[in-house]
């Protein structure tokens, strides 16, 4: 009997084996692409971070263990660029969220041209970051910038201000450019979330005597919380890894005022041609981001809203 069962099962097992093989084979191209473009670079970066990899010394790549990590962690520039990044993120992320929310609330109203505005508002986000950077560098130029011209013609300033030549105004300029570039995306996310909030909740709030601010605080904001969390995490990641605006607008200056951590990693690789330091820095940045995101997720754990 048992033998019969085994004999009967054999064709089924063969078929199941063929199916498994077929499944693996069909997955293989995708797996190879993922391995080629993600796993290999990642593994190679780990290798780089554990070796002395200075491009100008191409024949000397000894294994150095965690030396690159230790050197990077002990560097003054890690401290300075981390501080600059924290200041930048602390200013830019809330500003992007506030801008996005304000625009979303505005576009959620029906008025003439609102449909057109919903499309136009995305333009700064769709523009390549390098172009945005060039535009803002020109706007903030100390000698012939549009901002100085505008403020001067309005009588607000009597002497042109070299916005990108002093640390405080250069940092502020970078934040403004970041808000201009990232704000529209946040606005579109939040607008989409606003449009899913049931109207009945506002009607109920009105019946209970809740007006504009009260409805915003007790209905809109709680209902937006999951989307706000996503936007907050996304914008924090974007702020921490911001590189292109720095590259085009300030080159990390004046001094090291706008040398964000991603700029520091870039200079280690391309200016100091030290791939080992650059790879170690990249892993440290990624690790720090994971910690920040975990903190966010824990702090903003949302109640069951939907």
């Amino acid at each position, binding site marked *: 009997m048992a033998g019969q069962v085994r004999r009967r099962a054999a064709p089924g097992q063969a078929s199941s084996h063929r199916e498994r093989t077929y499944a693996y084979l069909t997955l293989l191209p995708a797996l190879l692409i993922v391995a080629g473009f993600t796993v290999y670079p990642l593994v190679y970066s780990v290798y780089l971070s554990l070796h002395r990899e*200075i*491009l*100008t*010394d*191409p024949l000397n790549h000894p294994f150095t263990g965690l030396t690159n990590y230790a050197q990077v962690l002990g560097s003054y520039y890690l401290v300075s660029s981390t501080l600059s990044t924290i200041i930048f993120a602390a200013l830019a992320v809330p500003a992007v969220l506030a801008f996005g929310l304000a625009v979303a609330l505005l576009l959620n109203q029906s008025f003439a041209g609102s449909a057109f505005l919903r499309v136009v508002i995305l333009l700064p986000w769709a523009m390549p970051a390098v172009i945005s950077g060039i535009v803002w560098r020109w706007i903030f*130029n*100390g*000698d*012939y910038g549009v901002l100085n011209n505008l403020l001067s013609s309005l009588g607000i300033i009597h*002497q*042109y201000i*070299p916005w*990108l*030549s*002093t*640390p405080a105004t250069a940092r502020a300029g970078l934040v403004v450019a970041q808000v201009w570039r990232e704000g529209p995306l946040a606005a579109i996310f939040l607008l989409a979330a606003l449009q899913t909030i049931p109207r009945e909740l506002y009607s109920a709030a009105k019946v209970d005597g809740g007006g504009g601010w009260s409805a915003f605080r007790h209905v809109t904001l709680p209902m937006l919380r999951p989307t706000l969390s996503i936007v907050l995490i996304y914008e924090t990641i974007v702020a921490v890894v911001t590189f292109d605006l720095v590259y085009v607008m*300030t*080159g*990390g*200056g*004046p*001094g*090291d005022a706008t*040398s964000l951590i991603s700029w520091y990693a870039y*200079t280690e690789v*391309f*200016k*100091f*041609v030290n791939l080992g330091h650059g790879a170690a820095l990249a892993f440290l940045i990624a690790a720090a981001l994971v910690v920040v995101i975990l903190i966010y997720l824990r702090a903003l754990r949302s109640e069951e809203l939907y």
Partner: protein
Amino acid sequence: MSDLDVLVNALNAGRVSRREFVSRGIALGLSTTVLGSVLAACAQTAQKSGGPVDLTFVTWSYGIDTIKSNIAKFEAQNPNTTVAFQDFSWLNYHDTMVTRFVGKTPTDLAYSSDHWLQEWAAAGWLAPLEDHFSQVRSYRADYFPYVTSGMTYNGKVYGIPYYADTWAFLYNADHLQRAGLSGPPATWDELTEQAKTIKSKGIANYPVILLFAQDDPGSIEVWTSMVFSRTDGHLFDSSFHPVFNQPGSAAAKTIDWISGSLRDTKILDPASLQSQEIPVVKGMESGAHTFTILETYNQAELNNPGVNKLAGNFKMAPMPGETQGTVGYVRFYAATGQLINRGADAVGAAGKFLEYFGGKTGDQFSPVVKRWAVENGLGFGWKSLWNDAEVKTAFNKWGDSAMLQKNQELARAKDGLTKFYPSWDVFSRTELQKAYLGQVSTQDALKAMADKWNELQKA
């Protein structure tokens, strides 16, 4: 005969270029890997057969139309050689080239600079020209000393000058006249006094503008020129040990002068810290500033009546300071290690290219050398080119050839040209800006620069 065979035969016969071969191969459904292998095999065949040669030539983005026209003329004279030309921004040129070299992107000939020679040669990315192009040795005697220094690594010459210029002190003579000043300043203190007078008379709010943008490689050359102009204006001793960090050094005095001009006397435009070459030139052209330090060829632009209504007012003077020294630099044509590995035909074609673009036969300079000098006012590395009447006349239209020549004789190559100079340069630009802004003291900035130098030297 298969389609691939037909295509390979066409490539070997020179009827299609390498680029066309790849596009037609892809159209036939062949992978780039297969095409790459075929191209490599064909390249070896071509080397044996003395067939057509493709050269890839990379430059920074200046005078692109002139370069293209020079290439067209060269190709017409050398029908077996095709030159693929690519250009990249000067501001990102170092990083772009490092990426190309590391990624083994085909590059045969390229512009390089004394900034980067040691780094690129030490990595094997550039080849010593004198080992492969015998004519280079004979050129040496006719170069200004700073030109030879800037193109030499481990005793061998790696380049033929594309242009060789000096940093020069330029001023608006009309401003000086209106301020009642009899002539340009001879010292930095005198410059301060003159600028204060000009400022107080409302002629220029910020009489001085300097090229100090952190992302412009020229910024370290301006600063170094200011150091060279002072007594004991050296950054390193003969063993490459820093001397700039000693108290009271020329470097310290220079930083103090800049910082004071920026924050105390306010004669230096704060926008200098974000000003690259073009904004400085535009600032001078607009009449907003009186004094600057620029590459000498910019005087041609400033005094060009076609683009500037203040043309004719911009004069050159020796660098203020006791020695009047300045930085002389050389940007040059270099050959890559990749070129040499391609074999005799490619090297031979490159030799003709270098000769056409930067060489000299007997007393006859190549047409390209003279063209850059006459049409663009670019400085040159050859002493004897000053004997050319056409060149002298061209320079005298916008400047003073005697003054230009004197500046070249006073010029020195930058101190500390080593394989780690580019890294130290980038690091130092940040420290210098922090000192100018008063974020750190002069001595702390110089100490950080010296520490970085020692760290790089040990590594």
